[in-house]
Structures are given as structure tokens and as C-alpha cells.
């Protein structure tokens, strides 16, 4: 167990330190959401209606694009070779890395969402709903993105390629995330239904992600 704790704390320490990517995801999220009204126009009623969708799309892109260095940095400096020869199973090591990434990138998105809700003129219930669904949904985005990161580890085209590869896999999470938020605001459907499905998706991806990523790494070796 100490091995997984060690890699979790190391990754979090790395992302917070100089040169780490901890806040890059949140900045990207902030900028993407701020850009939307420039395109859509400052009509507050319209912004309020599509607010949850804007926040979810921003969080989705921010989560995926911040993942390209997750495994590639260990591959580049030779740490991946040692991780492969350690007693700790690769699947759990990758899950620990994904968790560390979510804590430093995914969680700040959830915290920043209510602030951005102000820009989009969301009322408190809408902001609360979006924050709750993001809290449940962003781990799924990170674990699915983990598979993309493992597939592209040896390639030089990391970042965008990951998004292209795994975006289709994130469609269910996006659908139920936005549906749950809208259910809380407009809601013919009770909030619980799409939300529990979203949580189910997250749990499923928390299992499939690490195993698929480990398989991708093992088969990626020559």
C-alpha cells in the first residue's frame, strides 16, 4: 500500500511545484467559459439557459487536454521502466496517478465552476447542480482520458490526439452530466435519475480506465 501512496503523493507534489501543471487545467476552463459569451453575445437569459452546457464542455476539454503529460513525462525520463518492474501492480499505479491528476486538476474545476456560474448569470440552484454533477463526472473524464494518455505515451503528438481518441468515449458522461444539471433547473425528469446514471458511469470508468491503460502500456512495449 505504501507504494501506491508514494506515487500518489509524488505526482501531486510534482504538479504543484515549479513547472507542474496543476492550475493549467483551471485556467483553460476559465478562458474557454469566458470566450463563450463573446461568441454567443451578452444576452443574459440565453447564457443562463445554456450555462450548464458551457461549463460542462469547458470542464470536459480542460480535463482531457491537461492529461498529455500524465504518463508521457514518466516515459521520457525512464521512470515508466521502473514502474513496470515494481511489485506494485501497474493498474493500481495508473489509478493512483489518475487520482493524483484529478485532485490537482479535476477538483479545481469543480471549485471554479460556481465562480464562472456568476459570469453566465446562473442562479444558485443551477450553479449548485452543475458543481455537483461536475464533482461526480470529472473523475470519469480523467479515468477515460487515462486510456488516451497510455495509448499516446510514445507518440510526440500527445495532447490533442488524446482528446480525439477518447472524446467519443466521454459522450455518455457529457450527456448525463448536462441532463442532470438541466433536470435540477428546468427538470421534467427528477434530478436523481440522470445523476445516478452519471455516478454509475464514473464508477465503471474508474475500473475500465486503469485496466485498459495498463493493457495499452504493456502492448505498447516493443
Amino acid at each position, binding site marked *: 500500500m505504501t507504494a501506491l501512496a508514494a506515487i500518489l503523493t509524488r505526482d501531486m507534489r*510534482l504538479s504543484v511545484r*515549479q*513547472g507542474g501543471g496543476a492550475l493549467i487545467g483551471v485556467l483553460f476552463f476559465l478562458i474557454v467559459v469566458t470566450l463563450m459569451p463573446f461568441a454567443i453575445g451578452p444576452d443574459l437569459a440565453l447564457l443562463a439557459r445554456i450555462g450548464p452546457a458551457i461549463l460542462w464542455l469547458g470542464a470536459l476539454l480542460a480535463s482531457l487536454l491537461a492529461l498529455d503529460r500524465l504518463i508521457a513525462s514518466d516515459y521520457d*525520463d525512464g521512470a515508466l521502466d521502473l514502474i513496470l*518492474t515494481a*511489485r506494485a501492480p501497474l493498474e493500481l499505479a495508473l489509478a493512483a496517478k489518475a487520482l493524483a491528476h484529478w485532485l490537482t486538476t479535476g477538483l479545481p474545476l469543480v471549485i471554479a465552476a460556481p465562480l464562472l456560474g456568476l459570469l453566465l448569470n446562473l442562479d444558485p440552484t443551477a450553479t449548485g447542480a452543475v458543481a455537483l454533477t461536475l464533482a461526480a463526472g470529472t473523475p470519469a473524464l480523467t479515468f477515460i482520458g487515462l486510456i488516451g494518455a497510455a495509448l499516446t505515451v510514445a507518440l510526440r503528438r500527445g495532447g490533442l490526439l488524446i482528446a480525439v481518441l477518447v472524446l467519443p468515449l466521454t459522450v455518455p458522461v457529457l450527456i448525463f452530466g448536462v441532463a442532470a444539471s438541466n433536470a435540477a433547473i428546468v427538470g421534467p425528469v427528477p434530478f436523481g435519475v440522470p445523476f445516478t446514471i452519471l455516478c454509475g458511469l464514473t464508477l465503471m470508468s474508474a475500473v475500465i480506465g486503469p485496466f485498459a491503460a495498463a493493457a495499452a502500456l504493456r502492448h505498447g512495449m*516493443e
Partner: protein
Amino acid sequence: MRPIPRPTRLLATELACVRGGRRVFSGLSFAVGTGEALLVSGPNGAGKSSLLRLVAGLVRIAAGRIELEGGDGDANLGEQAHYLGHQDALKPSLTVAENLEFWTRYLDGGAATAPALDAVGLGAIAHLPAAYLSAGQRRRLSIARLISVERPLWLLDEPTSALDASAQAMLAGLMRSHLASGGMILAATHGPIGLEGVRELRLGGAG
């Protein structure tokens, strides 16, 4: 920590390795007993690194078998070996101590890093970020991992690169004590590494 069973022999029979569609070597057989060191030599591209990575389990075996007789039954070969590659596996933003502590805890759950740092002469700058280290110092920090984590088989890929004379002597000393305590070494090198009574395995000589 349960006592680590002492493997008696590393045995390779008819090993073959294919990388990127190219047959790097084939029909390779050798054995390394306890307290023995085997130097793998040969021109660049002869497959020295590939052989070490293959033994460590980082490269797929095309044909043949490799096993560690008498080793820890349920641990595969890679988990009983130290692989020291060209890269140092160090994070620049972590300090010298943090880097070694991480690998010590990750590879075997222990945490005694101070003696290892002193053995490689980095004890005085344990608090410095690894970014400030020279290539030689980074190499020595990477070597410190071999001391702080107890593993019977050492797979060293050109261990003396970037090391000056005093560091090479230090490494030779470490290797001698490892062999004396019943360890095994498989090293890929261009020249001698300061060890006496060492067998050599020539790769790709005729090729």
C-alpha cells in the same frame, strides 16, 4: 519484510529478440551464478540494451526462455532485478532525498535512504532539487537506488557513463560488495568496469 530467497542462477536458453521488425539477436544462451558478473559487449546496435531490457521484462521475448532459479516464486523476474538504464528516472523539481525516497518506497516499501546517499557521496546535498545536479551527480543518485532497495540481480546498461574516475571506483566497490553478498550482475559496457574475474558475452561479433 519477509527474507528474500537467494536465487542461485539466472539461466537463459535460446533467447531471441525482435524489435521493430528487426531480429536483434537469436539463439542466445548464457547463465549467471551467485556472486558472478557477466559483461555484455559488442558494437552499438548489437542488442546489448535490448538484452538487458528483455531480462527486466520491458521488452517482449520473441523466442527462448529466461528464468531465475531459486528466486522468489510468485514475483516475476523484473521484480527481482534492478534495471539501470540510460535514463536516470529523476524528477528535476523534486529534491535529491525526495527522488530516492520515492523509489525506495515504491520499489520495496522500505525508506532507509540516508546510508545510500552517503555511499554515493550525495549526502551533503540531499536537500537540493535534482535540477541543480550535474550529469555525473544524477547518475550517482540513480545508482543510490541500487543500494537502498535490496534486489539480487543488477541489470546495468553502461553504468559508468557520465561518471568520473572516483565515481567509477565507488561503483566498482558497490558492485564488489553486491557480488560478495551473493548478488548477480549483468552489465552492458564498452570497456572494463573495474571488476576482476569477470566473464564476457560478445553480441553481434560475427554479424
